[in-house]
């Protein structure tokens, strides 16, 4: 029995019933946009809170625990403070680019967010090149970082921005290739089909066994690097560059960079869940008959991967800039290329593990 509540479908049907088709489409899109914006802000704030609590847990501290239950509202209070702050900037900054940069970063992460499937029901934008779109859009953010660093008229910002440029360009390759490895296995770029393939034959991390696990490891390393988080946080290496590219930003513009970083982490974790851990699918199909629970499983897995990334951050030292490039070009990239071939051979010979 399928106990689907079909919330989104009911809303869709109702909208088209009460108003004309073009108007309903517009209203529907606005509703979706508002929902995503709300999710964006909420998830960002919650992740900041989670990061601070987890960091405190690793560092023998308590973390925020005063505002609201377990300090949950601390980040909201911080956001309110940032909104009320004056927007100051350096005198000789390139004002246009300086003000434009945060929007690049935030728009890029919002666009990437739009194709993520939260469950079978909550999947706003299921295009046939979904994964490709994700890779393409997530790399727009680096333009914002480069612009911000360049226009700030600050040498530390500039060094941070340049590091970010070379880091993102290098690690994008690894993210892309490890995603391609799974696309070889799935035979589709469309996210709903990738998940459908996992529903049929088990999660890809098991279905694709060895190459999938290698791909997952590379994806996590490169994904951490692409979100500019420790141990790859060279662009804002506070012991070297102060704050890196966002040194000169204040108030809400800084908050944009900050929120985008956490949303990017969410996106990377979400891609990892979609490609390797079956997206909204429940383990062993235990709650497959209740599609609404998909959102619970999806978020649970995403938070698991986010916890892993936070664990990296609070444990590892930072790499040096040449080691960063050595790791990518001399190790990850060749392994990745070999891995794709391995995956292709395994798929071709039908050696996948299917349940």
């Amino acid at each position, binding site marked *: 029995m399928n106990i689907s509540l079909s919330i989104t479908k009911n809303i869709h049907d109702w909208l088209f019933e009460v108003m004309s088709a073009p108007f309903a489409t517009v209203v529907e899109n606005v509703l979706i946009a508002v929902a995503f914006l709300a999710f964006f802000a909420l998830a960002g704030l919650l992740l900041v809170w989670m990061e601070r609590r987890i*960091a405190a847990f*690793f*560092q*023998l*501290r308590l973390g925020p625990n005063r505002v609201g239950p377990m300090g949950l509202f601390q980040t909201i209070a911080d956001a309110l403070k940032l909104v009320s702050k004056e927007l100051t900037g350096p005198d000789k900054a390139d004002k246009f680019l300086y003000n434009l940069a945060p929007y690049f970063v935030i728009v890029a992460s919002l666009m990437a967010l739009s194709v993520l499937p939260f469950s079978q029901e909550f999947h706003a934008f299921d295009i046939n090149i979904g994964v490709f779109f994700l890779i393409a859009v997530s790399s727009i953010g680096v333009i914002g970082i480069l612009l911000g660093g360049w226009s700030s008229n600050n*040498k*530390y910002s500039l*060094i941070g921005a340049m590091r970010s440029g070379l880091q993102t360009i290098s690690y994008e390759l690894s993210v892309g290739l490890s995603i391609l490895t799974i696309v070889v296995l799935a035979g589709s770029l469309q996210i709903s089909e990738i998940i459908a393939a996992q529903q049929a034959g088990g999660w890809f991390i098991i279905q694709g066994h060895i190459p999938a696990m290698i791909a997952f490891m590379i994806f996590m390393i490169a994904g951490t690097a692409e979100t500019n988080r*420790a*141990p790859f*946080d*060279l662009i804002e*290496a*506070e*012991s*070297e560059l*102060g704050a890196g590219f966002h040194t000169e930003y204040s108030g809400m513009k800084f908050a944009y960079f900050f929120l985008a970083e956490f949303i990017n982490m969410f996106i990377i974790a979400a891609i990892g869940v979609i490609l390797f851990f079956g997206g909204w699918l429940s383990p062993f199909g235990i709650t497959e008959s209740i599609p609404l629970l998909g959102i619970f499983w999806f978020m649970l897995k995403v938070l698991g991967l986010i916890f892993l990334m936070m664990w990296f951050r*609070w*444990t*590892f*030292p*930072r*790499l*040096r*800039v*040449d*080691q960063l490039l050595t790791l990518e070009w001399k190790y990850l990239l060749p392994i990745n290329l070999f891995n794709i071939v391995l995956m292709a051979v395994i798929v071709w010979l039908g050696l996948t593990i299917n349940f």
Partner: protein
Amino acid sequence: MTTTTENNAFKSQEYFINMGPQHPATHGVLRLLLTIDGEIIKNIDPDLGYIHRSIEKMCERDSYQQIVHLTDRMDYLSAHINNEAVCLAVENALGLEVPERVKVIRTIIAELTRLASHQLWWGVMGMDVGALTTYFYGFRDREMINDIFEETCGARLTMNYNIPGGLMFDLHPNFVQRVKDFIAHFKTKLPEYDTLLTGNVIFQKRTQGVGILTKEDAISFGTTGPVARASGFSCDVRKHHPYSAYDRVQFNEALFTVGDTFTRYQVRIQEMWESMAIIEQLIDNIPDGEFKTPTNAVIKLPKGEFYQRVETARGELGVFIVSDGKKNPYRLKFRSPGFSNLSALKKMAVGSKLGDLVAIMATLDIVVPDIDR
């Protein structure tokens, strides 16, 4: 600057950045003028004096008892050892013999200070290479020593316990037990330091082969302490010119040969083990007796020049007193370890990356008030 060569657009150009006086990696108000080509450091020019308080000049005004209290503002992480240096210098000049009890207590306190300093250094070292968690682990253990010091002398940072002739007051009754508790605690925690940072692949790659200082350079720059011992220069004052109770304890001088950032790190980790060994040998055998030899209320040194060296957590601290027989010195000069160690920075860091510079600076263990005085 523009030339008309065809490759002008691809020509690299050196630029200049100010690292400090407000920068997280300079651990205070040190200013480094860096010339950089991309990420590679071409020249380093340290600019000192941002926290110069003319301590040496103030010493000429003060009585010898007062001078002691200025010294813990120099290298604030080795406050007890700095105090001890001045006290020893004055005592030697006077020919004053302090009780055995004082010597043993001074040694224990000095080793606890060294442990506390190295713990802070370890935390900051990790933070400088990007592992933020180490900071809190180092401070967790340092806190226990600070509590012991607070109970002993009332202060947690600028501690004053030594006076010319002995100690200000006797040990707190809890002292022995608390030190034993701390040693038992830290013996289980020091291996944790290795697990978290020393054994980490990224950390080893970041530090091995970086900022190499040869033995010849170490000697010619006048480096002392862990920096010199990592390069193979045996210079431990505690071994070569024992003072207080160091002549009756067994300990090894931490000596390495490579002289890179990683060995400087290892020297300090090993020194923490040695310090614990020294404390363990002494803590059960603190002799009974007086805690000070009475001195005149106004100490007047005989005419002449007096030098006393001690091993602080950073290296050799020298106190040079020129006395003209009055109640205050004619001239007092501190040979601070941080100043000489910093002078080797350019030799070590030129040609390496910006990230390496931060790691090298961290293993120099710079305390800027010690450099500027």
